Structures are given as C-alpha cells and as structure tokens.
C-alpha cells in the first residue's frame, strides 16, 4: 500500500542544508499498523507528510496504492488524498465554526465517497455532541471527532501524527483501538508517536534517528 524507495529529503535552512529523510526505504501493505518513534527533529513528521503526498522528496520514489504519487500534479494528489488518505493530528485541527457533525463531514467538500456521519458519531460516542462546536468539547472528544473525520472518507491509509499526545489514557485507548480496528479491517496505519505505550499498539515499531529508520525494532 505504501512503498518508499531510497527516499531522501533535503531542506534549505538558514544555516545550510538540513537532512529530513536519509535514503529511506519502507514498505507497508494493507492491514499494516506501523508506528514510528524518534526524538524531535528526527524526521518523523517529514516522513508522514511525504507519505501524505504533501512533501515531495528530493530523490527516491513514493508509491501509494500502486501509484507513483509525486508524478501526479498538485490537484491530482489532492484528489488522491481525498480518496485514499485520512489524517489525524495531535492538535486535532478541527474547524472552529463548524459543528461536530459538520467537522466529521469536511472530507465531503473534496468530493470523496463517505461513511455515514451518524454511524461515526455513534461509534465514537459523539451523538449527543453532534451539534456542538469544537470549543464546547473536551480534549478527548475533539480527538475523537478528528478520528471520525479521518475515517469519514473511507480511506485506505491513515496517517496519524502524535494522535495521543494530548490525550488521557482512556481517550488514548479509544483512538489506538480505533486505529487497530481500522488496520484489522484492511487499512494501513502509519503513526508517528513519542509514546512507547502507544507504539506498542502497532504491529511494527520503527525508530527514526536523524532521518534514518532503524529496522531492528520490528515486532
């Protein structure tokens, strides 16, 4: 489902070039749940954005669902994201002026096929909060809305960036269980996290250090 081959990403910083990804090769198939741990600045988010079709590598190829993703135009990649990828962010990034139900439905704006918002509301215990604004929700509820939004477009891949970073254990468990369920149903999850406990939920744990992936941590 996700295949990275010799991906190298270099940024131009104020003090010269910065290595984001250093010749990474990685393969994730359907049903895989992979976590990536590493210190800040190790390249975790760069890896996630590269897999999320939003950050073209300096060299190497990224293949998602058998598509060489960076050979596509920007709009084609946006269409691909809408169709195949769900994102989950540490800061949730819910739209503050939309209700819970509307936030869950935002992928619909990109024209993708979608699940029933009511099922998702029910699944994540948000049905009573359907018409509330994000500012009226607890932190855990906000992340559950973020999770429901990521699943709304029936994606094949979920890219999660520190999804439990701000959550209590109970809500962390809800999110991680949902990601596990998604992978068990044939979806692919690539999760970046600082937390060992969260990483343990993945079938495979990778360590990232200065842009390189350490394969020795495979479960």
């Amino acid at each position: 489902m996700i295949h990275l081959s010799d991906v190298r990403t270099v940024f131009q910083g104020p003090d010269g070039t910065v290595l984001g990804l250093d010749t990474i090769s990685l393969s994730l198939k359907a049903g895989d749940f992979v976590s990536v741990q590493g210190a800040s600045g190790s390249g975790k988010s760069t890896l996630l954005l590269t897999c999320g079709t939003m950050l073209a590598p300096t060299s190497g190829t990224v293949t998602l669902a058998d598509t060489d993703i960076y050979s596509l135009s920007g709009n084609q990649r946006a269409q691909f994201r809408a169709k195949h990828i769900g994102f989950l962010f540490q800061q949730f990034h819910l739209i503050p002026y939309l209700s819970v139900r509307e936030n869950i439905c935002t992928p619909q704006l990109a024209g993708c096929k979608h699940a029933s918002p009511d099922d998702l509301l029910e699944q994540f215990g948000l049905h009573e909060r359907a018409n509330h604004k994000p500012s009226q929700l607890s932190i855990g509820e906000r992340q559950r809305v973020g999770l429901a939004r990521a699943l709304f477009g029936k994606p094949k891949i979920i890219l999660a960036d520190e999804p439990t970073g701000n959550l209590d254990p109970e809500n962390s468990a809800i999110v991680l269980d949902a990601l596990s369920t998604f992978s068990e149903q044939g979806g692919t999850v690539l999760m970046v996290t600082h937390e060992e406990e969260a990483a343990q939920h993945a079938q495979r744990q990778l360590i990232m250090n200065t842009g390189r992936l350490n394969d020795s941590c495979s479960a």
Partner: protein
Amino acid sequence: MKLSRLILAELSHRRLNVLIAIAAIATACTSVIATNALLSLQHTHSEQRIAVYQEELKDYLDEMNDDFRKITKKDGFNVRIFPKSADLESVHFGNIGKFTMPEEYASKLANSDLVSVTHLLPTLQENIKWPEQDRLITIIGTRNEVPQAHRNPRKAIQESIPKGHIALGHELHSSLKLKIGDPVTFMGQTFTLYKTHKERGTKEDLTAWLHLSEAQKLLNKQGLINVILALECKCAMADIGKVRKDIARFLPDTQVLEWGTKALRRMEARSRVSEGKKELVAKATAEAEAERLQLEQFAAILLPLIVIGALALVGFLTLHNVRERRYEIGVLRAIGLHSRSILIIILGKALIIGFCGGIVGIVVGYLIGNAQIPQAVNMNILSINEALALLIAAPCCALAAAWLPAVLAAQNDPAIILREE
C-alpha cells in the same frame, strides 16, 4: 456538506470582521449615492436660479417692448425724406447738395390724406466755402412748416428764419465775435444776425441758417430742396416701416431715413440695460457651471479615495482572515480540497460581503438622501439602473480587493503549515 455551508458558517463565526467589511463597502456605496445626489441637487438649484433670472429678463424685455411701443406712439418718429438718387454715404456725411427734388414735394405730402406724417419742413442744404471768411461751412435754408390741408394748424416745432436774417452755429459766431443784431456779409449779401446757436459739439457748430428762398437764390437752386424733415410722425403701430410705406405712396422717387428720435434714444438706453441684464444671466450661468465643475472635481478626488480606502480595508481584513485561518486552510488542503476550492471559499465570502455592503449602502444612502434633500426639490436620489449598477459594482470591487489574499491562501503549501505544528 457544501462549500457554501462552510462560507456561511465562517461568516457567522467572525461577525465583527464581516460587519466591518460590510460597513466599509456600504460607506463607499453611500458616498457614491451622496455625491451623485449632491451633484444633482447643485445642478437642480443652478437650473432653478438661472430659470428665475431668465424669467425676470423675459418680463423686463416684455415690459420694455411695451414701454417702447407706448413711448413711440406718444412721441412719434423723426424722419428725413431724401431724393431716391441720394446715396447713403452722401446722406450720412451731410454731402447731399448735388441731390435735389422739387420743393412742391413738401406741398404734395402736406395735401395728402396721410395722418402718420406731421410737421413737414422742406430744407435745402449744401456744403460751401464762405467766401468772405474763407471757411468751409454748411448752408441750410429752411422755411415755415408746410400747412397740412386736412389738419388743424399746430404749434410749429421749429422756428423759421425771417428773410434778410441769418442764424450761425457756435463755432462761426464765436470765432467772429458776433452778437445778435450784428450785420453779417454772406456770399456778397448782408444779413442781420438773427440767432446764435449754443455749442453742440457737432458739425452743426459750422452751419449758417437762412430762409429757404434766399438759400435757393444764393445756391442758384430756385424751387429745389434736398431734404424734407417730418417731425414726430405718429403711427398707431409705432412702426417706422408703415411711415415709409405711406410716404412712398405719394413720393415714390424718395427715400425715408429715421433720425434723432427721442423714443429711439430711450430704446437704445434701455437696450443697454437689457444687455446688462443678459450679461448678468450669462454670468450667473457661468458661475453655476463653475460651481458644478468645482464640485465635480472635488468629488472626483474624494470619491475614489473613499472607495479605495474601503477596498483597502476589505483587502486588509481578508488578508487578516486568511492568516487567521492558516491551519484551517492547511487541513482542508490535507483532506483533499483543491487550491481552486480555497480560492472559492475566500472569494465567496468577499462576494457576499460586497453584496450585503451594496444593499446596506444603497438603503442607507437612499434614506439619508431623502432626509437631507428638501422635499420641495423634486429629485430622484437613485434610479433603479443606478441601484442595480451599484449592486453589481460593490461585489465586484470586494472580489477585486480580496483577490490577492485569496490567491496567497490558495497557494499556501499545506506541508509547510502542518510542519509548523
């Protein structure tokens, strides 16, 4: 969910931002309406003021024409009847000695049934050299008025010179130091000075007046004259043309010229006043036009400034809004929205703000205009077409103002935004 729902929800969420932008557009629209109304009002006032001046002038001219008719009816015309052969140049320069007509023409006219011709004075005049004084003068021979058969005798307008006497113009008698009663030798004959004329400052100061028969004899033109003066000719229609026609019926080989009429002089004086009035109207018109131009020039500077200020504010607010929604735009791009959709979201909001601002501006402008402009001035503040034009222009201007921030938002790289987290 549709993009329109997202736009409306955001409008509702950031009310203050939206209200300020709507107020800016509304202010611009109201300014356009107010300026337009002000210019129209000024134009209407000017037109009314000029119309009053023109009405006053018309009344004055009508009154003057009426006065002229009455005055000429009372005072009559003074006319001079010349031989038809006399050219105008000779007539106007007083050199008509070579043109003559029979003296009996005066009697013929006097014995006619004409009522429009009165006080007939046959005259012979010629420019000659006064041999004894070696001076160029005009000799004028006159006689008593020719009595008119069908009329009662009237008081003579002009006194005749008795035979054996002479009257001299001011220059002649003053230079020769002559007094009334002094003997004057003129063309070999001796006359008694009958009258000394006062200074007139014209060529009449160089004239010598004799009895007509003696002048005819001295000039060797017995029975001939060259001018018949007809003084205070009356005409019910106060029309010199009618007098001419009447005379031509009896003396077809003559020509009639008007001269020195009192009424004519009054008319000339009043014409000058009329000209003055016309100048005043022209001046008032020019002043009104200058005032209008000045106002237009002022509006041409002020109005664009207000509109540009309003659009700059809308542009600034849109830019602020786009920066505030940076993560939101990043997430929307991440979940698959095209940059085109981001452009639609930002410009859609600007379009609605422009439309609402246009409506508010039109309503407020119309109400203020109606409240400020006196009801007595029957003026349409805003036509339907103008309102429609504003309603189209306001959203277009808001779109233009929001265009750059919208393009910047659409070009935002979601990867950069999300990495900032």
